[in-house]
């Protein structure tokens, strides 16, 4: 991502931020209001939790396969390769979150660095 935000005054930037915070809170507040009468162990809420997991997975997978923003300037094979490597390490180390995360991020950093140096 290059360039700077232009054509906006300081006041309009802050007003926009306030609106962005408000429209984000809308989901938080709405969800809280909807569930007021529901039992936490009810099937409906178990389904809703599954929807949250599915939505988050879709978001993560989209960021890895079809990123927008800075990650657009990296190679698909680096992102996927690093994620696969992380998962292999994750399962080798009995589902250790830290090992998986640091292996994947480390592999990704090395791959991007190696490309910038013309090594691969």
């Amino acid at each position, binding site marked *: 991502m290059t360039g700077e935000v232009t054509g906006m005054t300081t006041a309009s930037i802050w007003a926009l931020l306030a609106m962005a915070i408000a429209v984000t809170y809308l989901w938080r507040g709405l969800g809280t209001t909807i569930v007021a009468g529901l039992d936490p162990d009810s099937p409906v809420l178990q389904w809703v939790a*599954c929807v949250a997991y599915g939505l988050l997975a879709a978001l993560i997978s989209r960021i890895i396969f079809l990123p927008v923003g800075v990650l657009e300037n990296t190679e698909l094979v680096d992102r996927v390769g690093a994620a696969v490597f992380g998962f292999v390490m994750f399962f080798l180390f009995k589902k250790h979150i830290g090992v998986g995360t640091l292996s994947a*991020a480390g592999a990704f950093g090395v791959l991007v660095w190696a490309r910038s140096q013309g090594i691969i």
Partner: protein
Amino acid sequence: MRQHVEDKEGPAISASENPYADNWALFRRGLLDGFSLPAFMVAASMIGYGALVHSAGLSLAFGVVSTLGIWGLPGQVALIEYMLLGAPLVSMLIGVSLANMRFLPMSMSLAPLFRGSKTGWRLRYLWVQFMSVNTWVGLLRRVPELSPDQRGPFYAGFSTICMIAGAGGVSAGYLMAEAMPFYVTVTLVFLNPIYFAFVFAAMRARAGLLAFAAGAVAGPPMYILTPEWSLPLAGIVAGSVGYFADRLLKARA
């Protein structure tokens, strides 16, 4: 010395033996829980965001307020990208809002956990503002061992350390932006989604795991079909697949 705390709801518990003896101990327990991996991941991810805020020519104050106010990285990044594009106001707000739409099912899952606690339930509209994937999962993990009354202070402690880490991370990223090489910036941006992938992959509930796997498969093709609506659609489809597949497997077992 045995110090007994009289409690109307339950039997007397020994303050020296029970780590959850009072609210302050619970708050500290939350702080400590968050101070392991979660806070470091928030800080590292927000370093990437701070660098993005800097490169967009926005102020550090904007970086910190947007982090704590929106408190959801995809929405924060979407806001800056829309500002750079100079998109019309309404499309900007819809974009930011949809990027953080996960907060709807998440708050529906989080808020009921405080039912049964007078103070916890009264503060539910505040708790959902602190909610991120990290704090939500952090509380869910401890739910079996915490009573409704104990969840509020624990969650407040966990959220506090995550928000301190977030504000610190965005500041550090903003100040170091010019010194950070490209491969460091993109690695930090990559860190956030990949960390959550492992957080959920380590989950024990089968329905959630199945939903997560289905969402990972459905995400990219749905995005190609309809970029704006891909997330809610993929969430509903994958969530239903996970939920009903789990029920079928249970019925067969």
